[in-house]
């Protein structure tokens, strides 16, 4: 039983709801604000991104400045997260690596989202032979081994971060396209799509007003899963020598280096790995919160 003031609050809220028309996004923002975990996740990512991208201006040591006499030291007042084997400040390296990991993660996910959602929606909506041909093309790309594809790209073109984004994005959109197409296929048989057609809505409006908003939940969840897998892919490519090269760093390379030295200098693994997992947790919380916030049915109040 809610207390009396509680009830008043509900009543006031209900009044407010009746008085003003609310859009999907404003509603979603209201619901997101109530989800503390999602807010925390979103806030953490925002802070981390700020710290990473502003790190050159924060007055901390440069990521490539070596101090060979110092060597690997545990965390201290001067080096908060310790130093690595070459005496480089670990915090600076983590923040610098975050720039690359976050931008690869977010940019490649954005690329894969953009291509995957449009491609999948078109295939599912158009149906028939177009759909079959489009999806067979996806199958063919799926069959190409990713590593070989990237190596080929790197051999043909110069090695660059931009190419890395594109290579990863070009692979990740395939799954997205399949997922979205499947969702659209079930959705377009629903009667509200037929009702929209019977009202005389244009195809484009049906796609953007009725189809895509109803696929959003799945897209968001899958996107939050894509970001970490992209970051891991980047680490893997860097390990093979196709991604980020020393003295530059990314979380993937830091974790990789830390893993080699973890018995003697555990902090070299512990700190980059903690940043990595905290980021992934936050992304997942934020993604979950966003999905619930965008789905009117999920709110239980």
């Amino acid at each position, binding site marked *: 039983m809610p207390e009396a003031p509680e009830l008043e609050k509900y009543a006031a809220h209900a009044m407010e709801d009746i008085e003003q028309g*609310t859009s*999907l996004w404003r509603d979603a923002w209201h619901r997101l604000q109530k989800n503390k975990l999602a807010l925390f996740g979103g806030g953490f990512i925002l802070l981390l991104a700020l710290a990473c991208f502003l790190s050159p201006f924060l007055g901390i040591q440069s990521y490539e400045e070596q101090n060979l006499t110092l060597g690997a030291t545990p965390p201290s007042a001067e080096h908060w997260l310790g130093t690595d084997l070459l005496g480089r400040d670990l915090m600076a390296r983590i923040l610098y690596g975050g720039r690359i990991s976050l931008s690869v993660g977010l940019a490649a996910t954005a690329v894969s989202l953009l291509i995957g959602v449009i491609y999948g929606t078109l295939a599912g909506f158009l149906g028939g032979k177009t759909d079959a041909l489009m999806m067979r093309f996806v199958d063919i790309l799926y069959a190409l081994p990713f590593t070989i594809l990237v190596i080929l790209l790197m051999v043909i073109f110069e090695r660059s971060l931009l190419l890395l984004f594109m290579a990863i994005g070009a692979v990740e959109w395939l799954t997205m396209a399949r997922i979205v197409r499947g969702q659209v296929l079930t959705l377009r048989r629903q009667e*509200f799509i037929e009702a929209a057609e019977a009202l*005389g*809505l244009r195809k484009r409006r049906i796609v953007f007003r009725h189809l895509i908003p109803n696929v959003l939940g799945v897209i968001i969840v899958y996107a939050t899963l894509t970001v970490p897998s992209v970051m891991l892919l980047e680490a893997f490519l860097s390990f093979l020598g196709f991604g980020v090269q020393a003295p530059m760093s990314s979380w993937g390379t830091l974790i990789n280096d830390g893993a080699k030295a973890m018995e003697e200098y555990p902090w070299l693994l512990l700190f980059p790995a903690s940043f990595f997992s905290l980021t992934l947790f936050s992304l997942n919380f934020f993604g979950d919160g966003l999905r619930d916030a965008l789905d009117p049915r999920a709110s239980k109040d």
Partner: protein
Amino acid sequence: MSVEDVSNPQGTGLQQSSTLLRVAGLKVHFPVKKGLFSAVKAHVKAVDGVSFTIEPGETLGLVGESGCGKSTLGRAIVKLVRPTAGTIQFEENDVSLLAGGQMKAVRRGMQMIFQDPVNSLNPRMTVEEIIGEALDIHRLAGSAQARRNRVRELLKAVGLNEAHAERYPHEFSGGQRQRVGIARALAVEPKLIICDEPVSALDVSVQAQIINLLQDLQRDRSLAYLFIAHDLAVVKHISRRIMVMYLGKIVELAPAQIVIERPLHPYTQALISAVPEVDPESKRQRILLSGDVPSPINPPSGCPFHPRCPVAEARCKVERPALREISPGHWAACHLA
């Protein structure tokens, strides 16, 4: 002589100035294919040569078993499925020939109410957005204020209140959702509404409310309905004429009272005997049909009903009965009628 040769099976003697909807020889065949590039193997003849008319302000009931093509017929009229052959004339326009802007204009004249109250409303839009979209697309509300007022007016017309405008579909009961669907259809002020089993997913008590609402709206706005259902009791209550479909074809078409009291086609007789009766003293004979509805891919020769017909004769196997006017306004497709 086949069904599509029959021109304009008219209803009762009541003649109105202009016919609202005239369907002639309508066929909807769906190709059956296997694989990506292989040829069409066969056709599902969902609607196979159907002709009828609807007058302004009248209700034509359409009954038949599931799979007989009645929903496909309704969807073909509002062009949600493409007809294979035949014409659909709505007022002066042949719907099957129109596209783009002209089609959009015709769409204003006819709307559809759907069976499933859960799936027929976009779960991510509020009621105001759902109804408002219908207004926007045909530019029926000049200002935001006019749009607001119109939405609230429509909600009142279907028995909901203003506060419901801000809510999402999942916050309503089945009957209320169906009311929202009706309000959406009414928003564009149509002359004809295709009701595709609008009450079969609802509780019996709610069914009566929705039926009454539909009748009130018809009286106030002189709407015409094509009322599709599989329940004869519901159709009898609301319709002026009843049309019975079997395997994509019309088997009987007559004023409601006559179909119920003096059905001519053995299939209609079986359907009517299946309607439960309140009076326990009633000693009515139930006609039980044996077997299932044959596949519409490969319908039986002659009369499509002959394998299940209790009175079938030799010629029913070979000769397809035409839909003929047995008595004024009473059409049936049976050799024995």
